[in-house]
Each structure stands twice: as C-alpha cells, then as structure tokens.
C-alpha cells in the first residue's frame, strides 16, 4: 500500500510509525508535528526524519507556531492544505493519523 501518515505531535506516545511497512510511505507533519521539521534538540534533527519516507510539513501550521520555512530541514517539503489534498488523492491510497 501507499500510505500517507499524519503526525500531529512532537512527543509521540506510540511506536506505530516505525512498524508500518508500506510499499510507499509519506509522513505529513501537521499541528505540533511540524516541530519535527525545524527543532534541533541537543543539536540533532528529529529522529523521525531518519524514517524511510517522503516528508511534508504544513505551511499554515509552521507559521502559526512562529517557525519559518527557512528553518525547515532539507528533507522536508513545505506544503499547503491544497497540496495535502493532492497528496492524499494522487500520491497515496490510504491514510493514517498517528
């Protein structure tokens, strides 16, 4: 399957994401999930970004939190709500809100 997984937390309380093994995985960072795209805790990028996946972060939620697109990790593509709709419909066939 081609799975679009939404991450809306910075501190995750489940280990589901590391166990899912879809043929294609997209991780869409929304809500407080966007901190994974920008915060370098103790100097290191979020471990989440080591997952074998394509990464997206919602522009609107970055801006809401005072995070600029320039601080987003190079692995992560900044997208809008409209882009998220297209990702869901065109690039993936199932979704998971983790």
């Amino acid at each position, binding site marked *: 399957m081609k799975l679009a997984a*939404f991450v*809306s937390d910075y501190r995750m309380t489940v280990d589901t994401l590391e166990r899912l093994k879809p043929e294609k995985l997209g991780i869409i960072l*929304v*809500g407080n999930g966007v901190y994974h795209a920008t915060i370098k805790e103790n100097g290191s990028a979020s471990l989440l970004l080591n997952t074998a996946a394509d990464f997206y972060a919602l522009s*609107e939620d970055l801006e809401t939190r005072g995070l600029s697109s320039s601080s987003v990790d190079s692995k992560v593509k900044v997208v*809008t*709500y*409209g882009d*998220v*709709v*297209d990702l*869901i*419909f065109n690039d993936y*066939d199932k*979704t998971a*809100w983790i």
Partner: protein
Amino acid sequence: MGKFTIGCFASLVGSMNLDFAVKLAGAAMEKGHKVDLWVSGNATMISIKGQRAFKDYSSLEKPLKELMDKGLNVTACEACAEARGYTKDNTMEGVKRHSMDWYLASAFDADRVLHIGGE
C-alpha cells in the same frame, strides 16, 4: 474528482485537530472533491449552535456554515452528542445527527478516508 470522508473525534477548542479537519475539508472542496465530515466523541462540540466567537478560542461555527453552504455534508454522532447534553434543539442548523453506521456508510463509497482520532 473524488469523494473524501473525513472523520474527526477531537474537541472544538484545544488540539486544533478540528480546525485542521475543517480547513482540509474546505481545501478539498475547492479542488472539486465531494466531502463528508463525520464528527464523533468530543468533536460533536462543533455541532452546538450559538458558539460565541472570541478570538482567544477556536470558533468554527462560521467557517463550518460557509462550507455547508457550499455543499459540505456534516453529520454528528447522535449518542456522543446526547451524552454531552447537545440535543436536537441546540444543534446548529444544517448539521445532521445519525448513529455511527452513517460514518461507515460514507466510507463505503469514499475514494479516500482520513480518520482523525481524539485527544
């Protein structure tokens, strides 16, 4: 263009997941998709009429009504609503109330389903 079923279980104020669901519904409709929004659990809070729009709190009555005017189909879980004291009388005009099988029926012929859990 497809059918998109969004289920949201998060509260009106707080996690902003319900704000996300409403904005995503709007973005999908702009792209020509048909959208069903199912609210269950604490998300039934969005169905009550007369939410006072303070700037300090998420206030979704207005954006929801605008999207319903454009064809957004919104249904609240009846039992979840009643347990919280949201009766038929204090439900926002245009919001339907059904039992949980409505959500599954909406998913039956949906091209995509996004289920957003609760807090």
